[in-house]
């Protein structure tokens, strides 16, 4: 069956695999959802006790210990790991990643940690996709798509929102909208949603709650953009700050997570709404069940931001997706109430409307993924009435926050390390090419004692422009001579027997190592104004790398990446 499958048309193959991965991703999401509910119920009685503020700390410590020692997986809040694997490792993910994060995240969230289940479920789905691809011996290109498919299925299944899953996977993980990408991911996403509907029923969380949106409401939503952008920029910066400070101060990961958890627990004693993944909170925000008062919702938004940063930034396992929605809903409520105070005579569409838009705005700008925000909000309300306002708020929030934070929360670390290599960019292409592939071998070797006369004969015979000089006895690389440099002596027959090759060695030509990254090699080319460089490993000359070859391969590399 494997052979039959391997002979099938590429896209059909991907559609089939996408469906299989969709089932896996969907199941992972359902499993996580169920176990979260169970565990939350298990923890419920403890919340009335005096020591309840210790629960998040306990959960965070357990989750970190569990992840590092029991499951032996490396931490990270999920999505960046998937993106790194997709850009740098051909989508390879460890099999144990498919469940390790789920367990760790259950412990963190159910004990009150302020984080979302989406990050872990994305890495789960991705890892399922990756391992299925490896099992069927698919190539990197297809494996990457299946990782994207698994992630899409997981998101789609957890929110019952198939298009949001597709958008998330294309925007955040793959970074490229192409027909082949879309086909695979769409199938996986649809199947994942269907799995969740079969097992959990087809509920649209906020169906029919939002009615009576007037033109004034649509206009007013533009003001919300300011609030969502400020909120999301604060969120992203605080998260980065907490991660840096805690990482620098506390070297032991589990103590770090415990400290974060403790602080979250203390905040949670005053404002219990910030605890957990916060779906219940969102529900209440949209249904308008929050007690009136402008400051309380503003405070809640700030507290949710702080507690999420304390949970995730200190190494607690969980995603940022759900907290974004909670923060967004509070920001929206806050803005809605400000409007109510400023224009008491106008009949506004209701707090739920602004809460929804706030969610879209904050989510879109934290993730720098407008389509994800737009589709998610449209799908969880099940109505197209909000579409225009959601599009406006999402797109404008992304634009505004992009000025201050050009990279999404998932990409900023990778961008800092220089590992954010989006498809078909220069750095990505260069990172995929290897110096060994570009090596021109078979240059004649020179010896330091050679006379210019012998060298001129060699230059006459060979087309190369760079000649390595090696020690005659040991074969050690000593330097390189450029054919261009002899030009000034060519007509000087007097010197043919006086100048030795060792005197012609070009000190301006550094040797590169085969392990060097190609973009660094390109920088050397530019800085030294040379067109070829010797490649040397362990004092042995391996070959020459030249700009001409790089251009030629670079072009071919681009050509094979084209989709037909």
């Amino acid at each position: 069956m494997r052979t039959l499958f391997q002979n099938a048309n590429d896209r059909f193959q991907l559609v089939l695999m996408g469906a299989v991965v969709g089932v896996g991703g969907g199941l992972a999401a359902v499993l996580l959802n169920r176990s979260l509910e169970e565990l939350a119920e298990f923890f419920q009685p403890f919340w009335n006790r005096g020591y309840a503020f210790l629960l998040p700390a306990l959960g965070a410590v357990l989750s970190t210990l569990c992840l590092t020692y029991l499951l032996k997986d490396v931490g990270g809040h999920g999505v960046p790991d998937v993106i790194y694997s997709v850009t740098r490792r051909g989508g390879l993910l460890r099999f144990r990643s498919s469940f390790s994060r789920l367990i760790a995240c259950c412990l963190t969230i159910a004990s009150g940690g302020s984080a979302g289940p989406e990050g872990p479920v994305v890495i789960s789905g991705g890892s399922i996709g990756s391992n299925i691809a490896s099992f069927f011996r698919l190539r990197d290109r297809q494996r990457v798509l299946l990782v994207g498919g698994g992630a899409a299925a997981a998101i789609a299944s957890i929110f019952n929102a198939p298009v949001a899953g597709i958008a998330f996977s294309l925007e955040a993980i793959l970074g490229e909208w192409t027909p082949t990408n879309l086909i695979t991911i769409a199938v996986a996403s649809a199947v994942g949603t269907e799995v969740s509907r079969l097992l959990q029923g087809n509920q649209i969380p906020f169906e029919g709650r939002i009615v009576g949106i007037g033109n004034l409401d649509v206009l007013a939503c533009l003001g919300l953009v300011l609030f969502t952008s400020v909120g999301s920029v604060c969120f992203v910066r605080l998260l980065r700050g907490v991660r840096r400070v805690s990482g620098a101060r506390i070297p032991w990961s589990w103590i770090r997570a415990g400290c974060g958890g403790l602080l979250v627990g203390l905040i949670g004693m005053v404002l219990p709404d910030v605890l957990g993944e916060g779906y219940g909170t969102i529900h209440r925000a949209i249904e308008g069940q929050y007690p009136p008062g402008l400051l309380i919702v503003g405070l809640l938004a700030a507290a949710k931001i702080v507690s999420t940063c304390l949970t995730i930034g200190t190494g607690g396992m969980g995603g940022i997706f759900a907290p974004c929605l909670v923060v967004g809903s509070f920001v929206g409520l806050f803005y809605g109430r400000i409007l109510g105070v400023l224009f008491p005579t106008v009949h506004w569409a209701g707090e739920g409307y602004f809460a929804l838009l706030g969610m879209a705005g904050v989510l879109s700008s934290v993730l720098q993924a407008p389509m994800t925000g737009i589709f998610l909000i449209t799908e969880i309300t099940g109505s197209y009435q909000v579409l225009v306002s959601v599009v406006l708020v999402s797109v404008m929030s992304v634009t505004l926050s992009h000025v201050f934070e050009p990279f999404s929360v998932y990409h900023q670390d990778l961008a800092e390390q220089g590992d954010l290599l989006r498809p078909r960019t220069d750095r990505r292409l260069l990172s995929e090419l290897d110096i060994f592939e570009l090596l021109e071998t078979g240059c004649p070797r020179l010896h330091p004692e050679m006379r210019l006369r012998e060298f001129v004969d060699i230059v006459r015979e060979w087309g190369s422009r760079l000649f390595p000089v090696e020690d005659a006895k040991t074969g050690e690389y000593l330097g390189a001579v450029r054919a261009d440099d002899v030009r000034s002596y060519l007509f000087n027959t007097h010197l043919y027997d006086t100048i030795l090759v060792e005197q012609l060695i070009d000190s301006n030509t550094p040797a590169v190592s085969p392990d060097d990254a190609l973009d660094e090699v390109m920088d050397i080319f530019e800085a030294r104004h040379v067109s070829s460089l010797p490649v040397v490993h362990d004092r042995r000359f391996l070959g020459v790398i030249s700009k001409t070859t790089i251009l030629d391969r670079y072009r071919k590399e681009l050509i094979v990446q084209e989709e037909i």
Partner: protein
Amino acid sequence: MSDKLGLEEAARLLGLSEATVARWVRQGRIPALRERGRCFFVEKHLRSWAKKHHIPLKEGRPPASDPAEEERVRLSEAIRRGGVFFGVKGRTVEAVLAETVKLVPLPENFDKDSLLEHLLQREELASTGIGEGVAIPHPRAPLEGLPGKAIVTACFLEHEVDFKAIDKKPVFLVCLILCATTQLHLKILSQLSFCLRSTAFLSFLKDCRSADELIKRVEVLEDKFQTG
């Protein structure tokens, strides 16, 4: 307000042709201003744009501006530093070299014995007799402790000596070349060889009796070398 750059300057800075930069302006890929139908670039913006796109800038002078440096390397100056000597004694290569080394003006702490050793080693590897009765002994690699500027000591020999030169002619003039770097050495060498290509200069050398005249003749040829 930072400096404005014209199309030409911007193209030079980016290391591109003007046509490319003009096309990028037309396609809106590069931040440009338009003033009375001409386009300008604000240098600060252009630099940050280039940095963002990993485009290396060509700063300062292009690499072809080496002549200024070459101007400083003059054979005549090197001979002036090294000195011209007449009637240098010796009937073998070793004797001549030993005599020459004694004459070279070098700092007092410089190890002249090791210099001689290096010169003889080089002679063993291949003769430095470059024909027409001239030899240019020099060490294989630049020796440590040499002054930064090139030194050429010209020694007219009392007796012609067989240096096993390629053209088998006996040597009457030894030009000891000492340079701190190989690049400098090659520059001096090519100037010297340029001079030796002139038959007029060669016949002058055979009857040369004055250091000043030699340096003057070298200067004339040098100017030709620089311009041509």
